């Protein structure tokens, strides 16, 4: 299988006082035709890594190869064949959607025309609208369209759906899935687990500049040992809760106690639930809440780091 991206032992330290080790030795490979997700909390080094791969930042050490070419020798050739949407770019307010796409198209030797690009992201009706009149979701779709006008084989999308409402997010997912159906490669960063689970063939979970887990979303979830989660909270303080009470229930794999909730990772909720309720009742402990759900990538992150994804980087 040919690789679209390959990086080995990539590091990046931002100079300054004190220097910031944003990326601390990263290796991964993305195959052609794959959608690869980079997941992680704020400050994990996702943007730094993706910008090195986009040729916008220089790595402190390590190798990065894109479409089997190296940035030092084939920069222009790589740029002709990739598309990029940065985490935060403000396109010119007073240009229209069509004008913006024509401008970007002019930079590529070959590509699709502005009209086709607008169709791919469903912005045909906004062709003559100034960018400042677009909604957040429309702006984000336009940003993706600017990545598509060069007819790339590989696109990099840095948090394409952050801050969007669920329906705008789903529109973008459709665009990305259509792109993938044509055999093209996507590298995507995101904070949203459901997004990664739905779009990505494989994901890498970043934390503090390193990859702490990699694999298909289902493999990662399976690695938890159990695929369901039961969360409940008690009326009183969780500190005095006796873990043995639940740990001994059949198929309970793991117990996490935090201030707000007690979380059980379980194999078979229909076995655990009746037992749990009757044991609590026997002890006279009353429940404040109880929910059950499928385990997600979020749970993988929590079990690896003890933190939630949206808590950010501690140091």
């Amino acid at each position, binding site marked *: 299988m040919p690789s679209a991206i390959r990086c080995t032992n990539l590091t990046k330290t931002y100079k300054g006082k004190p220097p910031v080790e944003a990326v601390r030795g990263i290796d991964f490979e993305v195959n052609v035709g794959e959608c690869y997700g980079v997941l992680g909390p704020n400050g994990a080094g996702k943007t730094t890594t993706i910008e090195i791969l*986009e*040729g*916008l*930042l220089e790595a402190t050490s390590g190798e990065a190869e894109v479409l089997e070419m190296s940035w030092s020798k084939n920069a*222009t050739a790589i*740029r*002709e064949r*990739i598309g*990029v949407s*940065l985490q*935060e*770019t*403000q*396109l*010119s307010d*007073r*240009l229209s959607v069509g*004008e913006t796409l*024509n*401008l*970007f*198209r*002019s*930079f*590529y*030797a070959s590509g699709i*025309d502005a009209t086709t690009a607008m169709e791919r992201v469903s912005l045909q009706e906004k062709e003559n609208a*100034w960018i400042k009149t677009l909604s957040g979701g429309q702006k984000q779709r336009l940003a993706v369209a*600017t990545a598509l006008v*060069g007819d790339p084989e590989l696109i990099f999308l840095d948090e394409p759906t952050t801050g969007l409402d669920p329906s705008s997010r789903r529109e973008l997912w459709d665009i990305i899935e259509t792109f993938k159906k044509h055999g093209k490669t996507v590298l995507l960063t995101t904070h949203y687990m459901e997004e990664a689970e739905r779009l990505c063939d494989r994901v890498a979970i970043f934390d503090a500049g390193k990859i702490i887990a990699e694999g298909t979303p289902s493999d990662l979830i399976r690695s938890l040992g159990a695929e369901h989660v039961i969360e409940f909270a008690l009326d009183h303080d969780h500190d005095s809760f006796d873990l043995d009470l639940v740990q001994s229930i059949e198929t309970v794999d793991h117990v996490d106690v935090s201030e707000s909730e007690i979380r059980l990772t379980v194999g078979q909720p229909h076995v655990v639930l009746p037992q749990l309720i009757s044991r609590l009742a026997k002890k006279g402990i009353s429940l404040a809440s109880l929910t059950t759900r499928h385990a997600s990538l979020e749970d993988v992150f929590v079990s690896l780091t003890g933190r939630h994804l949206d808590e950010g980087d501690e140091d």
Partner: protein
Amino acid sequence: MKTQHPILAVTFARLREFIRRPEAVFWVYFFPVLMVIVLGVAFRNQKVETFDVDVIESSLSNSIVEKLATEPRLKTHVVSEIEARDRLRAGTTTLMIEAAESSADKQILEQVEYLFDAARPGSLAARNIVDARLQEAAGRRDVLKVKDIKYEEPGGSYVDFLVPGLLAMGLMGGGLWGVGFAIVDMRIRKLLKRFMATPMRRSHFLMGMMLSRLIFMIPQIVILLVISYLLFGVKIYGSWLSILLVVLVGAIEFAAIGLLVASRAKTLETASGLMNLVMLPMWTLSGIFFSYERFPEIIHPIIKVLPLTPVIDALRALMMDGKSILTLGPELGVMIVWSIVPFVIALAIFRWSD
């Protein structure tokens, strides 16, 4: 559909953004015009200049006033000495006249004293006019026949001098602000970084930015020239084509300097500080409002190689003196050096990302 050349695509995008910002258009195009109007009115050629002079109150003051009454260029006032000194200090008058007491007959004027500061404009002229009238009244006869002819050369008024200066100043401000600010703004918005992720050639982008500047410049110059002609009769004595060439090279020059100034700035504050720093010496030294001949001769060689000076000198030579562009080799040479060197340096040190 055929795609545009990237230089033109950048140029047109910039032009569109510019015309869609009416307040920016207003300042770029009408500020220089406003300056011409204000300064043109302030320094218009007056018909006859008049002087206010004070005569100190005495038994002879009325006789002095009578003798000066026929002179249209003088306005006399009889006041006390204290008041006259106050008025002289304040600059209300240019000259104070006092009749010295004569011992014999108090009704005959024998001696007068003039008090004035020769360094003040008009003082000496007022003194000489007063003196001539009083001497004539006392019986002096001129022996040499003289005839005064009014000097009126086309292209010789202050407005004629000012317009080329303001035109060049407009080129400078427009180039530096227009190119420099736009670039820093694009850097802050990460748009430059976004462009770097495409195969766009860096030089194409920078040339597009400069070219769009040249195109904005054309209306700016036409408006300024037309308004100065309509309001103040400023005419152009040299060839239009030569003027266009000088304006074009001047616009390229300042766009290139604007690129250089903006090549590394990360904030608009840094950029505007740098631009003022670059422009300040030229505003004061290059002779926009008065000739740099007034500065000591040793610094003339330095003034002449500032980017603005050759533009002003060349425009004045073409517009006021009707000279040929062939005589302007040194000026054009300096301008061309200032166009190429900053562009090359800017291209080398330019900061594309944050």
